[in-house]
């Protein structure tokens, strides 16, 4: 049995409904709690073990050891390489990493904005000032 205009109820109804399109950026709906946005690092638990960097499929994380005995290190996080897969969060056995569900609008106008340093203040400073080169942790020899 052939019918005609089978989508008539849909289009007639749509004339009286608001469009389904979300008027972003004027309207922003709430992002779900589990959204994998920007990576956030908590300095407390981190020991610089580098498992996160080893398991990152996109080579977005690097740990630079400044002084292994004094436990001075910093991490470099390249947002432009990050896949937002969340493996680093799982690999970290100490719970130092988490992905934000609020910060996901990450467009920037400069390259520098995409390199984020995670470090205890002193380590960050010495790293930035060109301190001892340290050994970066990478997964590929």
């Amino acid at each position, binding site marked *: 049995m052939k019918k*005609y*205009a*089978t*989508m*008539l109820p*849909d*289009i007639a109804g*749509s*004339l009286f*409904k608001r*469009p*389904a*399109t979300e*008027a972003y950026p004027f309207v922003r709906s709430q992002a779900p709690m589990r959204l994998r946005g920007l990576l956030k690092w908590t300095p407390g638990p981190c020991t610089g073990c580098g498992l996160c960097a080893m398991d990152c499929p996109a080579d977005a994380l690097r740990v630079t050891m400044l002084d292994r005995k004094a436990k001075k290190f910093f991490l470099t996080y390249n947002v432009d390489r990050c896949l937002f897969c969340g493996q680093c969060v799982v690999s970290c056995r100490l719970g130092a990493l988490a992905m934000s569900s609020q910060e996901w609008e990450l467009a920037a106008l400069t390259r520098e904005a995409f390199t984020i340093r995670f470090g205890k203040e002193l380590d960050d400073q010495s790293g930035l000032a060109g301190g001892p080169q340290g050994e970066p942790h990478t997964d590929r020899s």
Partner: protein
Amino acid sequence: MSLLPGIGAMLIFPGGLSLLTASLLYEWADHKLLALLQNRIGPRWFQPFADSVKLLAKEEIVPKGVDRWLFFGLPLVALAGALTAGLYVPLAGLAPIASFPGDLIVVLYLLSLLTLGLGLAGANSLDRFSLIGATRTLTQVFSYEAPFMMALLGPALAAGSWQIATISAYASGHWLALTQPLGFVVALIGLMGKLEMPPFDAPEAHTEIVAGAMTEYSGRGLALFNLGKAVELFIGLTLISALYLGGVENPLLFLAKTLGLLLALTGVQALLTRLRIDQTVGLWWRYGALLVLVQWLITILVR
């Protein structure tokens, strides 16, 4: 001399620039209505203007092996034909700029100029997509043109004249859509065929042949073809409103009737799948022609 007001009417209002502006606004209305029917937002009011301006500003690439005169001339001829047809129809509810007995036939042929121009333009290019598009355009012309013309001549039969102004005045009294329903339906669907609106957009089915006859066009040529199509939409709506929907005595009625027709057209656009070219031909030569002939028979007998 009445030349200056005549030229002003032709070039500024209600023809020429106003006609172009109104056509682009109606094209926007078509897209916006379609979007609303599909539960989305659609373009903003200046989108067709922006598109035309952008295309006019772009480089025109002339493909190898085409006849340059035809390549540059056909879009001009198409747009010119559409704009000239505007001289004889009651635009914006005002009296036609020019009028003479038999101008209905002239208008119909001027409107076909665009389609034929498109077909020729497609055949001009050496590109395979254009050739197939041109073949389909011309096949479609052969299928809907006769029933469409006959459907528009139905009110002429009832009014006893081939002059649009006279038929329009005759139709002001009563709605021929009610007394000649079959002709009205064929005219409406025929307009969709002429404008290559879905479901009759096989000639420019972009999932099959990229853009049909217009594939090789860019820049100015494409802009002129698009403008021509928009003008045809406007004139087609005006014509059918004037003939079938009880005339268009003043601008307000004109707006209401043409927009109402546009809503109907857009509704049909949204509801149906694209027809293959052989299905289009079959549909028109089986049902279209039959319906309109039956309508003519009834009209003649009743008179």
